[in-house]
């Protein structure tokens, strides 16, 4: 039974629905904070949509590589119960005490036995579920090698000879009698992140998707580009099998209400998605392939995304055509696709030929998730996305149920990760406080000191069923190993990773007094941890094991040449033995965890994070540089959706000030900082007298905010008729009578943003302009409002307000950076002159008010100072730079540091609140521990050999080594990432990387050639 760990009577756990990247993040955050989680997914393996992406923007990294560590992480966590092929069928009860019925489809494979050898797939490919993914035209065979769980799944209906199938499994894991399982679990809260599906354009005849093979969706194009995709990464037109020369992307398919059945919202991620695909195409094929993107507005509003757009334009030569495509046809007898379109400034139709057209299809909620919403009992909006709280988008209409990811609304990976952590934070708050579990105490066996013993090696060789044993004679391998120096025991172990074999190995270690172990089996990548744990259980240091990969890298790939395979297996085992005898016991570096939190910045973000952590019982120090809490929100009146910011803010300030566990320090200035992750000391001056004091804390949260920009442009500050959007909002609120007399109002977008001096987009301004123009029209329906824009970036559900503004008569006029509007004083008014592309002439409007969308800029002074004190990286435009823009969007590269809100990049209040909650969740993963474990694969300097040459100091990509007071290099194991670059460059050979010591690597080399030179 796979649900053996679920305790039916406890409601101190969280149910996470959906095993995509978001669900995994939520589950991991909860588990690391020692909360129990049931993670369910309706698929055979977890990973979701991301496992099908080739590369992700804006880093263009290979996704497989970035997601892999997360997947294996989730399987290892003790607190996570993973149920695949499982759906929610009923929910009763309420927050704190839900009762959920789960139904699991039969897998027909026993997960505990399956070794993912693949024999079933080889012999009965039709019966095995190998994920076809979203690409219906060209299925990929094995989904990816890091699949979790590491097991296959059987489609019994397709199987004609069940007995033969059962027999083929060497691990006897196939169980044809497997039944659907229905079970009931109790949980305190529920997080829904089942993801979204992608718009299907099949019904749109004019796009030809259904009939023309070379018209593909962006996800299909991704699969074609992918190394693990159907074409093995070869970019070819599906119809001809030839490499295309001209590829076009058409944006907004299924979004912005443009097509039949399209959502009214903007799908948020497609612009970047198309850019990425075009860039990757250009990177690989340069001038061999022309890339064109047909778009209405390029919406690159995320952190540094505008730079990505500029790169596509300027460095890669991707062509951008602001246009509306009309149809895609394939003229009789031709392979070219004929794309008809109109440009923005004329009604004339243009035609152009392409070899491939990619439809940038948007997100859509699936039937399945709508059903899920219904069963759970949360309300959906008109687009079938959950209705959420106005300042906290992960909170649904049903208490205790939270949402995250694309199920909540269209979004990209970083925002999904942020929401996932935020949902974890909210869900955890519904749990009763945990008492320390006895679970961890029981696994603390006494470790035998083997440092003075002669090496005594035990060699255990798996046959892995037929996988190894079917190709090579395991007994021969055992016999050979037994002849090698220091080998005390050599034996065959069947399935080494099975429970019985593990027990046998453990027993042998103890009985024979072994002090080194070699496993001949599968990849150390997947199994090293498992055997390390085994050694620990057997009472010897966990680092005294070495795995010879004789399955993945021998028998699986040399099955046609058994003799060579056996010789190579012998060599690999001998190499492992030679290496392991030189292995030394290592200790994991641990540090005691200080459970206080320092939050820098007392705006909405900082206060939200403070409250969340204080409510969990952690002491919070909240440092604000001004004399008043609230930050930039003090200047805001309402949100686009109509939320009352001042009411929200004042109640929050009240809560913060009165909370026992929060100590607020205003006029606080951080002046010094020292310590290690988990035990920092930070000095600050605060209060009117600027008293100096030091705070001990384990976590630092940066929520320093940004500043509203005020560039010296368009007469800003020279005449009262010109205001920023922020000032306009106040003015509308304070002087409604005056607004009623306005005739013309002009708004200029991108003032001080998206320029060579400040290349990034300020993200918030488009919706700000929409918000203010709607407010003006509410007060004064006769007013004429002009919005001069470059791209309207009303992403997600904001798009609907944009449509509303258009309907209510707001006049939208586009301008180019090369031809900006001209503003001149005209008495108490201003004359705004802009070039109208449709009329082809300059138009002058005399405006009563000119509102400038000046956006945000980083708080350079504060951030520069803090980055210096805390040694944290910043982006070129001065925001804090997170550890991984995709997967760790709120973690800083230095452990124990987190960033949230506009200190990270410009964003809206609800986005800041989400990040604040996310940060609180991430912080709790560390705060829940009493010690911080840092692993053992770190570099170590021998001070006696060191020449203090600084080469390691310069070689380290993380700036860890330094020359200490004794005059030699020192590497802080708490900061070392274990890459070994310093080791390789040290001219004095004074550094060794633990687990990969020079003598161990050289021992392998020497052992390999012993036979040859001897």
């Amino acid at each position, binding site marked *: 039974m796979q649900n053996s760990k679920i305790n039916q009577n406890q409601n101190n756990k969280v149910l996470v629905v959906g095993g995509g990247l978001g669900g995994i993040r939520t589950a991991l955050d909860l588990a690391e904070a020692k909360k129990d989680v049931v993670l369910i997914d309706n698929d055979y393996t977890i990973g979701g949509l991301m496992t099908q992406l080739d590369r992700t923007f804006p880093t263009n990294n290979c996704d497989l590589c970035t997601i892999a560590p997360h997947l294996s992480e989730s399987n290892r966590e003790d607190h996570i119960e993973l149920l695949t092929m499982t759906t929610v069928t009923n929910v009763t009860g309420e927050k704190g005490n839900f009762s959920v019925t789960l139904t699991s489809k039969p897998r027909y494979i026993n997960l505990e036995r399956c070794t993912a050898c693949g024999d079933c797939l080889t012999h009965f490919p039709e019966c095995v579920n190998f994920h076809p993914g979203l690409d219906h035209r060209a299925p990929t065979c094995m989904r990816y090698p890091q699949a979790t769980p590491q097991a296959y799944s059987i489609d019994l209906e397709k199987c004609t000879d069940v007995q033969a199938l059962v027999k083929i499994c060497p691990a006897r894991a196939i169980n044809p009698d497997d039944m659907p399982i229905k079970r009931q679990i109790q949980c305190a809260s529920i997080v829904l992140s089942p993801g979204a599906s992608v718009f299907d354009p099949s019904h749109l005849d004019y796009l030809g998707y259904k009939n023309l093979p070379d018209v593909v969706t962006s996800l299909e194009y991704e699969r074609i580009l992918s190394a693990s995709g159907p074409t093995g990464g070869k970019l070819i037109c599906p119809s001809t099998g030839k490499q295309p020369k001209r590829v076009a992307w058409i944006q907004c398919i299924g979004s912005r209400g443009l097509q039949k059945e399209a959502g009214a919202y903007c799908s948020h991620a497609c612009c970047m998605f198309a850019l990425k695909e075009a860039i990757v195409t250009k990177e690989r094929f340069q001038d061999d392939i022309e890339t064109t993107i047909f778009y209405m507005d390029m919406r690159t509003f995320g952190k540094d995304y505008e730079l990505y757009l500029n790169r596509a334009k300027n460095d890669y030569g991707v062509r951008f055509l602001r246009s509306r495509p009309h149809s895609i046809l394939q003229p009789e007898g031709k392979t070219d696709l004929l794309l008809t379109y109109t440009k923005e400034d004329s009604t004339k139709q243009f035609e152009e030929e392409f070899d491939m057209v990619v439809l940038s299809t948007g997100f859509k909620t699936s039937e399945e998730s709508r059903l899920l919403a219904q069963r759970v009992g949360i309300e959906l909006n008109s687009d079938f996305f959950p209705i959420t709280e106005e300042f906290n988008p992960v909170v649904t209409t049903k208490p205790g149920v939270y949402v995250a990811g694309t199920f909540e609304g269209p979004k990209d990976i970083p925002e999904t990760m942020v929401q996932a952590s935020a949902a974890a934070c909210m869900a955890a708050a519904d749990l009763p406080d945990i008492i320390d579990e006895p679970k961890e105490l029981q696994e603390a066996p006494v470790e035998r000191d083997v440092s003075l013993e002669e090496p005594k090696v035990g060699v255990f060789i798996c046959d892995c069923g037929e996988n190894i044993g079917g190709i090579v004679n395991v007994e021969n391998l055992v016999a050979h190993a037994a002849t090698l120096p220091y080998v005390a025991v050599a034996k065959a172990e069947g399935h080494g990773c099975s429970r019985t074999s593990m027990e046998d190995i453990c027993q042998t270690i103890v009985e024979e007094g072994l002090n080194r172990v070699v496993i001949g089996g599968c990849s150390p990548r997947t199994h090293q941890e498992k055997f390390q744990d085994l050694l620990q259980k057997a009472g010897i240091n966990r680092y005294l094991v070495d795995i010879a990969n004789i399955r993945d890298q021998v028998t699986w790939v040399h099955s046609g040449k058994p003799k060579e395979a056996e010789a190579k297996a012998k060599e690999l085992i001998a190499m492992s033995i030679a290496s392991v005898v030189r292995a030394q016991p290592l200790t994991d570096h641990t540090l005691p965890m200080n459970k206080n939190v320092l939050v820098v910045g007392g705006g909405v973000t900082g206060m939200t994070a403070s409250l969340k952590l204080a409510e969990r019982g952690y002491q919070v120090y909240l440092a604000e540089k001004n004399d008043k809490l609230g930050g930039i929100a003090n200047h805001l009146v309402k949100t686009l959706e109509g939320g009352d910011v001042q009411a929200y803010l004042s109640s929050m300030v009240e809560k913060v000030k009165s909370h026992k566990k929060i100590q607020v320090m205003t006029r606080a200035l951080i002046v010094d900082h020292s310590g290690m992750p988990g035990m920092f000391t930070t000095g600050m001056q605060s209060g009117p007298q600027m008293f100096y004091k030091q705070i001990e804390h384990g976590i630092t949260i940066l929520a320093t905010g940004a500043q509203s920009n005020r560039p010296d442009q368009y007469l800003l500050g020279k005449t009262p008729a010109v205001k920023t959007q922020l000032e306009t909002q106040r003015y509308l609120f304070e002087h409604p009578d005056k607004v009623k007399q306005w005739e013309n109002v002009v708004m200029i977008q991108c003032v001080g943003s998206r320029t060579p001096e400040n290349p990034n987009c300020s993200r918030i301004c488009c919706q700000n302009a929409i918000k203010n123009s709607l407010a003006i029209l509410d007060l004064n329906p006769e007013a004429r409002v002009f919005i001069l824009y470059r791209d309207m970036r009303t992403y997600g559900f904001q798009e609907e307000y944009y449509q509303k503004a258009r309907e209510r008569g707001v006049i939208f006029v586009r301008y180019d950076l090369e031809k900006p509007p001209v503003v001149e004083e005209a008495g108490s008014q201003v004359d705004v002159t802009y070039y109208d592309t449709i009329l082809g002439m300059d138009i002058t409007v005399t405006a009563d008010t000119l509102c400038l969308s000046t956006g945000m800029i980083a708080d350079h002074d504060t951030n520069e100072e803090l980055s210096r004190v805390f040694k944290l990286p910043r982006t070129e435009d001065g925001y804090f730079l997170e550890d991984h823009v995709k997967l760790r969007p709120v973690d800083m590269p230095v452990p124990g540091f987190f960033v949230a809100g506009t200190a990270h990049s410009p964003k809206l209040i609800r986005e800041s609140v989400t990040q604040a909650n996310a940060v609180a969740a991430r912080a709790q993963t560390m705060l829940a521990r009493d010690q911080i474990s840092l692993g053992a694969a770190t570099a170590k300097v021998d001070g006696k*050999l060191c*020449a203090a*040459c*600084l*080469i390691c100091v*310069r*070689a380290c990509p993380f700036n860890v080594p330094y020359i200490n007071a004794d005059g030699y290099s020192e590497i802080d194991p708490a900061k070392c990432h274990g890459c070994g670059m310093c080791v390789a460059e*040290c*001219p*004095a*050979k*004074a550094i060794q990387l633990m687990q990969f010591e020079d003598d161990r690597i050289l021992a392998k080399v020497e052992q390999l050639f012993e036979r040859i030179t001897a």
Partner: protein
Amino acid sequence: MITAERKPLEEIIEYIKPFKRILLLGCNECVTVCSAGGRKEVGLLASGLQMARLKSGTDIEIQQHTLERQCDPEYVEEIVSMIDGADAVLSMACGCGVQQLAMRYKEIPVFPAVNTKFMGASERQGVWAERCQGCGDCLLGITGGICPISRCAKQLMNGPCGGSTTGKCEISEDVDCAWQLIWDRLKALGLTERYLDIMPAKDWRSGGGSGPRKIIREDLAE
């Protein structure tokens, strides 16, 4: 620091051709810092020589050792027991180290394995640049902290020649014009007036003009 570079392998092989047992000595001082003759380079050279000799079919035994400093007699004394087992010594230290060895161990040939280059500073990882020629009469105090003797191709002491172009020396675009650097710095320091003083012809005696130099500290010297 003194910088050096490994000699071409061919030249080293030629030196030690007649010998079988080689004592290969590194130095943990300057040549380690400039990655020319530390433990790592000793290992690389030993391995390379081993292979080259194997190929030519002659036996070789290489003993590797790295001294703290080869330019101090006490450290050089350390290898006294190893010398007996060697037919020749190959030193990866600078010229000072090689001579120190040769002086101490008169009965055994000592060969250099590196070319000693110059006194330099690290520009960045893996790049060392000449900064001093040991002229014995430092000018840096009046040239804004930039040395025209070691950094101007013509050792001009009174300003840049006519070949200075956009901050670069006429001999190569990779070489900064020292006088551009000096001028920029004098400007930054507000000391441009100083430039108008004519620097008189240099007295090269302190720079080796009167034979090998020596420093004697009376209070320390025995």
